[in-house]
């Protein structure tokens, strides 16, 4: 028994070495650290499922998935584990900016690639950029800046801004104000995790804004929208897609109808491959894919495209292969700016009802070939 397993282990070790020796386009070990438990698990599960869908059947990819519990210290610990014990080549999966800030600098400092399927904090796009860090989703400000641009084009003059009082919230509102040319008549920063917005809604009602622009992720957005619907306030509602994504719309229901939100992807986006992705995702998991699922899917596609061009052990070549972004994104055209953040179109979507399902529909382009403003600070 013992000898048998020893032999088996030896064989596997040999096979492993053989695969490595295969050189060009050899096996790549991916470490995915994402949020799979606790209140924010929905996003992580979507990223994971999207990624695994694209990687399905690809035996050159060896993927380890671990749950960070949305805690930075756990994420750091997992990154260390994956690099030091699992010897992964590429890391990915982190959902939250604060976790990314905790993990990414040390990952790239240890010479590993990191592909971000969701978070894009400004520090990593500017001064803290790294040749080994690629953002496949967006820089955090992208949807907001596009929102401001769209508001300018569509005659929105007075907005009321609202976000939680934490960096992602404040950055988002700053991003909107960067492009928005109208008047900001009110600005409120709420407590992170707040669930009752009666006070804020009263303030919005009392203001002379024609539009409320808000960013409230997860349960906060659900709470706000339900309460907004009950308040009878007649103002336009806009925001980034994060509060109106598929996983969340089901919980808000009809209260979200008519809300405009900016995103780089939508399931009705008419680009090659997208319809197939949506169908494959539904077949595999029995639910509609979300923005996060699309990002996870694209991240895997990017990785697979680079694996066809270079060996991951050859860092410079693999970096160049990633930079080419030679894959068919479900978002349509996609390329990297010099700071390894996306250049992509951002669309305006509207929440509609298709049969019984509340979902998003594209109503126009908010920004073309959008890229972030932090790239100027990036020296690499």
């Amino acid at each position, binding site marked *: 028994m013992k000898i048998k397993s020893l032999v088996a282990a030896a064989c596997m070790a040999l096979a492993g070495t053989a695969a490595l020796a295969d050189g060009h386009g050899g096996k790549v070990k991916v470490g995915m650290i994402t949020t799979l*438990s*606790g*209140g924010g*698990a*929905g996003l992580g*599960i979507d990223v994971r499922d999207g990624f695994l869908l694209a990687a399905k059947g690809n035996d050159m990819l060896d993927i380890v998935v671990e749950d960070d519990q949305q805690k930075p210290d756990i994420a750091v610990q997992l990154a260390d584990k994956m690099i030091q014990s699992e010897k992964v080549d590429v890391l990915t999966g982190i959902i939250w900016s604060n976790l990314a800030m905790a993990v990414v600098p040390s990952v790239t400092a240890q010479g590993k690639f990191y592909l971000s399927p969701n978070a894009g904090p400004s520090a990593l796009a500017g001064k803290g950029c790294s040749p080994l860090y690629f953002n496949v989703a967006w820089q955090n400000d992208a949807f907001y800046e596009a929102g401001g641009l769209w508001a300018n084009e569509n005659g929105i003059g007075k907005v009321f801004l609202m976000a939680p*009082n934490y960096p992602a919230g*404040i950055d988002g509102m700053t991003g909107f104000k960067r492009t928005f040319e109208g008047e900001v008549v009110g*600005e*409120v*920063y*709420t*407590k*992170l*995790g707040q*669930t*009752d917005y*009666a*006070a*804020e809604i*009263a*303030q919005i*009602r*009392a203001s002379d804004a024609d539009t409320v622009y808000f960013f409230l992720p*997860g*349960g*906060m957005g*659900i*709470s706000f929208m*339900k*309460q907004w*619907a*009950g*308040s*009878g*306030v007649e103002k336009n509602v806009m925001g980034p897609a994060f509060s109106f994504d598929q*996983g*969340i719309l*089901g*919980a*808000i*229901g*009809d*209260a979200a109808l008519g809300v405009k939100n900016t995103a780089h992807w939508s399931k009705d986006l008419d680009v090659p491959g997208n319809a197939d992705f949506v169908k494959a995702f539904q077949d595999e998991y029995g639910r509609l894919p979300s923005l996060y699922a699309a990002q996870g899917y694209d991240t895997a596609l990017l990785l697979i495209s680079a694996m066809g061009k270079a060996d991951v052990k050859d860092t410079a070549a693999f970096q160049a292969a990633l930079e080419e972004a030679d894959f068919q994104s479900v978002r349509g055209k996609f390329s990297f700016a010099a700071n390894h953040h996306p250049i992509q179109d951002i669309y305006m979507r509207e929440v509609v009802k298709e049969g019984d399902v509340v979902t998003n529909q594209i109503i126009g382009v908010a920004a073309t070939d959008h890229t972030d403003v932090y790239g100027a600070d990036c020296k690499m």
Partner: protein
Amino acid sequence: MTPILLIEQVLNGLQSGIMLFLMAAGLTLIFGVMGLINLAHGSLYMIGAFAAAAVAGWTGSFTLALAAALAAAALAGCIIEMVVIRRLYDRDHLDQVLATFALILIFSEGTRWLFGSFPLYLDVPAALSGPVRLPGGILYPSYRLLIIVIGLLIAFGLFQLIARTRIGIQIRAGESDREMIGALGVDISRLYTIVFALGAALAGLAGALVGAIQSVQVGMGEPVLILAFVVIVIGGIGSIKGALVGALLVGLTDTLGGVLLPLLFGLFMDPSSATTIGSALASMSIYILMALVLLFRPTGLYGRA
């Protein structure tokens, strides 16, 4: 800020205070009668909301959903009282904190296992979905008004229950002398189960009522739990009256603090730092309130030494 807006904000503060009271009343009863700190009270709130969302999904009836929330939370309360909680009455607070902390983990992940990781849908009934016009021209969501009314009715009912009924007499006896009620021939373990289930049902009802205007998701109970603790500590642990006063104080402080503090700081600093500092202070305000109350009254407003 206009007076109308101020009145509306006071109403909002009252409404959130009343919801907190439903949570805090159960918590404080359970502490008063059994001497137990129950951190898992937030899980019962969550169970109520999930039961309501599930039943509303099947039947489409909000009334049935509320009934289901009451029943599910009371049932869950009975079960955990009989299986776990009753072993903790003689233990020190440390063991109680730990065991009920463990219950939170079990309930949260168990709910996620049953219902998935995505928030559930639960909306207010169509008849109550719009606003009503109050005297003075205030537009106020009718559902929130309903919450205020239901909450006040329950508070009244609870005071009556404790002041007038047989079980109320036993509860009061239990609060003043735990050994005494056993000597009087009351079935203590039955009384404890009933009190616990009653507290659980109130939490479940609060969860369902609030779930309709907030997000029904795993982990929704813990922030409310901490607030409810702040409430009963301010009011004095074991006192229903204290819970009511504490809940209203916390609701008003939280709501008005968030609105008024940034305005206050705006008087003497530039808008953006006023917003930042005001919001930061507002999010700490109820804890500051609690610390102040305890400094001057170490056993809360209506607590016994």
